[in-house]
């Protein structure tokens, strides 16, 4: 009885200090087990040769040496192709930001039915990437696909179709990815435009600013938060690209559409045996590419937090 009382009073006395930890505990536990620890484990596994079932064999940095071609071996060709494709994705995916802004400016009016137009323009984002991939692979069908029919009007023919040609396949997939991503950026900018200070716009208008000048000097600075988020989600989207590649070309033709995330999956879970160690090494490289961006994102958010205090 007395011990229960002291227990209770101890809890009462420290309630404010303990409660947050009790509330945090389940989320932290889940997050630690499924997200934080696996990152460390992947680093560990990347120094081993492992088929996912038996014992791991320590091989030191051999996986990385083979991947990057350190020493007397050549760089892994598939890795090289994947890496360059990743860069293509990163650069071209960013087109979603200006494209999204353009559509947002186009739709930022108050005519009859505009709300429905806005949601229909946004709608590609809600569809799963698998379906987007399927839709676009039919769109790109050689000869019978709508895209091929339309390019035919201009006398352009792409041998084997967009996705069957190693020079165009990656760009075809990126274009498919840009479709939902542009919709996402558009909705971010529409929300941002809604919050633009009308007094500033009027003032600038009285000063004779309009068109492109107005956009650049008055509107865009106010859209900065939207641009930041658009940038974050687009970069992440570009580096996560997996679904579209898997559905549309499965890495082909001749492995020309591989990216690091896809190559990693292929190495780890391919039918030629599971090479988990090598896969983990690829994942670690991808992680480090990502880390540069993550640090930048977090730093920006940290500045905001400090400003809010």
């Amino acid at each position, binding site marked *: 009885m007395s011990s229960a009382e002291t227990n209770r009073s101890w809890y009462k006395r420290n309630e404010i200090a303990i409660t*947050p930890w009790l509330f945090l505990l*389940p989320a932290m536990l889940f997050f630690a087990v499924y*997200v934080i620890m696996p990152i460390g*484990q992947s680093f560990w596994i990347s120094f081993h040769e492992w088929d996912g079932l038996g014992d791991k064999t320590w091989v030191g940095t051999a996986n990385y040496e083979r991947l990057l071609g350190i020493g007397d071996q050549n760089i892994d060709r598939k890795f090289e192709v994947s890496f360059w494709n990743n860069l293509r994705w990163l650069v071209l995916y960013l087109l979603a930001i200006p494209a999204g802004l353009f559509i947002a400016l186009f739709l*930022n009016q108050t005519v009859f039915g505009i709300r429905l137009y806005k949601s229909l323009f946004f709608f590609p984002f809600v569809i*799963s990437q698998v379906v987007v991939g399927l839709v676009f692979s039919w769109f790109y069908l050689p000869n019978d696909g709508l895209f091929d029919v339309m390019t035919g009007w201009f006398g352009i023919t792409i041998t084997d179709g967009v996705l069957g040609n190693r020079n165009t396949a990656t760009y075809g997939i990126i274009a498919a990815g840009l479709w939902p991503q542009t919709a996402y950026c558009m909705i971010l900018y529409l929300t941002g435009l809604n919050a633009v200070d009308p007094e500033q716009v009027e003032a600038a208008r009285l000063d004779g600013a309009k068109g492109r000048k107005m956009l650049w000097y008055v509107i865009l600075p106010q859209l900065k938060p939207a641009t930041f*988020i658009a940038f*974050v989600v687009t970069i992440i989207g570009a580096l996560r690209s997996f679904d579209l590649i898997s559905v549309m070309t499965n890495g082909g033709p001749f492995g020309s559409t591989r990216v690091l995330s896809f190559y990693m999956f292929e190495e780890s879970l391919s039918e030629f045996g599971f090479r988990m160690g090598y896969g983990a090494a690829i994942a670690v490289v991808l992680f480090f590419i990502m880390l540069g961006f*993550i640090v930048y994102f*977090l730093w920006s958010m940290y500045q905001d937090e400090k400003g809010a205090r």
Partner: protein
Amino acid sequence: MFPTPIEKRPRSTQITYQAFLPVALILWLLPLLAVALFSIKPDADFTNGNYWGVPSSFEAFNNYGKVFFESNMPRYLLNSLFITIPTVIGAVALSCMAGFALGVYKFKGNLLIFFIFIAGNFVPFQILMVPVRDLTVSMNLYDTKLGLVLFHVAFQTGFCTLFMRNFIRALPFPLIEAARVEGVAEWRIFLYVVLPLMKPALAALAVLIFTFIWNDYFWAVVLTQGPDAQPVTAGITEFNSQFRAAYHLMSAGSIVAALPPVAMFFLMQKHFIAGLTLGAVK
């Protein structure tokens, strides 16, 4: 407003704009309209090379009927539902609590924990893949819905906590202080003061997570195989190999697979966009 409201422009510009809107929309949704067209065509149209013309007969009921009654599609759809709903509940519950802790209390490490949750969000899936798959196998949860749900809950908690914490921060703090002065226990403050105010955030997160999880493909392929546990995004590939080159059925299947999040979006549009554009306005 920017750009200049169209009402202030000459009449001719207004008419051009109004006329151009539907054209732009059709161009934008062209790939989707093509699939919708495919899905109501008869098989014969494709063998005759009539891919893009008017359907020679209206076969929507037939095609969609086949999807629902002659394939594993209903099973995959159910799997998706049984994966998505528990994930939504789990992730929202965990992050409500974590967001409350991080948003209301000042303690050492608060900001650090918050930033770990955010950082976890940005991590490429691939670095988690091998260990998570290994963990799931060793818990005997490989190829089960539960295995997928547990991972999704854990991963989505990062984004949800970011969302919840920022939402709770924007709530009027004196409300909580007043309750404290009254001697209300902390967990009661959460339950009776904060939680009722969080309804819009709960709705926004629920629809967002529903869409994210329904559309997940990568983890479905990594953690499951076969129709017992696979969600519809992964199942559609099996469906497509069953109806190889039968475009009318494959497109009907795709539309069915894509529909639930679309319906969710149109029903809960306000919440969905509020959730998605969090932070886009200061």
